[in-house]
């Protein structure tokens, strides 16, 4: 669910956080749904084990729920989630250092400084991907499928074969999809100022 992505207005986020602090399971579920996949992926990049990633993330969400009184902004919640998952992953790695599997994982050995940069970069990347993932999920079904396959590296021809469409339809659908994404991005402006500067070209 993307409550915050349909309209990234501050009041929507504050409302969500307020409801969450008051213990509304639905608000918790929204926050969970928004971040679960990305956090698992983030953990997975550390521990290289799917089950362990999921366990770590679940534990962190339970911790978040019990500490819900402490958070006033969605960003604070995100920070807590990522930092907690990071810490849990590092603990996991230290414990399993002796296992062959992790012998080559140098993260726990990095200096704190370097660790922070490394982790920060991972978080940044995951968050960008999450935003993209979220916006694609909101597309209508056909647009979504075409875009997903495109991002997976499939050729127009392969997509056309898989979906039983003509190549031109696939191209048109892709254009429509990227236009919808772009339109949604435009609607999300409002957080900062008013004037617009064009920077860079579309890379999608």
């Amino acid at each position, binding site marked *: 669910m993307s409550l915050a992505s349909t309209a990234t207005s501050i009041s929507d986020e504050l409302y969500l956080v307020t409801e969450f602090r*008051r213990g509304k399971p639905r608000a918790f579920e929204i926050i*969970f749904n928004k971040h679960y996949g990305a956090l698992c992926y983030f953990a997975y990049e550390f521990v290289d084990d799917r089950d362990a990633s999921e366990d770590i993330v679940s534990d962190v969400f339970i911790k978040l729920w019990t500490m819900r009184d402490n958070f006033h902004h969605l960003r604070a919640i995100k920070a807590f989630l990522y930092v907690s998952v990071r810490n849990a992953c590092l603990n996991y790695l230290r414990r399993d250092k002796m296992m062959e599997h992790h012998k080559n994982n140098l993260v726990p050995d990095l200096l704190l400084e370097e660790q922070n940069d490394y982790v920060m*970069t991972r978080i*940044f*990347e995951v968050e960008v991907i999450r935003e993209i993932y979220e916006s694609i999920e909101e597309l209508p079904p056909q647009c979504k499928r075409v875009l997903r396959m495109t991002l997976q590296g499939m050729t127009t021809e392969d997509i056309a074969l898989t979906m039983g469409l003509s190549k031109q339809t696939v191209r048109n659908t892709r254009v429509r999809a990227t236009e919808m994404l772009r339109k949604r991005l435009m609607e999300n402006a409002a957080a900062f100022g008013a004037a617009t500067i064009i920077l860079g070209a579309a890379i999608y």
Partner: protein
Amino acid sequence: MERHEYDSFDSRLENVFRVAELIPRFKEGLLTFDETAFIADWLRESDANRRMFESMTIRESPKGRIEVIRSFEVNRQRAFQEIVERAGIQIPGVRRFRSRRVAGLLSLILVIGLGIYMCYRQVSSRPTVLPVVSLSPSKILPGRSTATLLLSNGQTVGLDSAHEGHISQQPGDVTLTNGNGQLSYISNGNASGEILYNTIVTNRGGQYKLILSDGTKVWLDASSSLHYPTTFSGKTREVTLAGQAYFEVAENKSQPFEVIVGGEKVRVLGTRFNIMAYPDEKSIETTLLQGAVAVSSGNADRTLHPGEQARLSGDGSLSVASVDADDYVAWKNGLIRLHHADVAMVMRQISRWYDVDVRYDLRGKVLPSWTLAGTIPRNTLTLEQVFKILWINGINCRLQSDAGSKMTVVVSL
């Protein structure tokens, strides 16, 4: 990790989130001036920042990594169920979004059993997208100051910002002006023998304020009407109400103010009170904020003190209870306050204020018996925003236009 390290990491992290949010717009060339400045500053802060930015904008296209996230999403619902169980999260029997009173509502806590759990699971296994809308509820604006005035000669005048200024009627013993959502009667002192009656009517989505010739102020809510004389002569000052209104009565001990509503007569002595008398609600509620009122109906007579509310129900019984009086007047300040409001009552309030019909599409399910308590700011929220609030509380609404263009909200669970 040391506290100070956590803090600086934390604030770096917040900026990382902000920048990550902006990357998709950056790639589309949609950044605003301030956003660009923000990113530029952030890039100047460190090499690490610059490397991060480059990795996601110049070199990288996410491709396969999106699929990895999706592969974890497959288990998401199951994972949430497990968390609910492990953390002992209770599915609420009473859904609140601002709680003021606990007592008396415990009777509505549903048994936390497999049945309810399955019901909740049903809810959370629905795809988590916003309710599909055939129309855009963001276009449905909240109510505003608009009403119709019916003069004694049968003429009607639309009251809104388009008709400001004097309204004349004969005989001219009052001056009548309309402006800023307010209709004022000022006595000219030339009392003629004839008593004229006016009626002010609000429809759904309307409200209006009135100052009667004795100085009494009346706030009229949606779907309401007030019938009153243009000047008050006689032993009492009598008005007739349907719907909901809040009164601040000008003091005049020699001429008591009376409100006739439904089967009830409310006699007041220089006070502030609210009367809610909608035909589709189950009782008429008279709530006293200040002063004293006597409520009588048939054979029953009760006197209210500030903070008390008289309830006259359909069977004619009259009861008095202590309440938080401000809650019942909140509507005049632009807030829909709900107390023990079941789903149907919430929807009736929404129907009146947003001027929509309501229809239920329950597919054999029963409306839940839990009730809502809380506040919806009604002047500033569009219907879409109200839908979001209801959605969080388990009520799904979508907007539809039936043949004949009436907007209908379809409620499902």
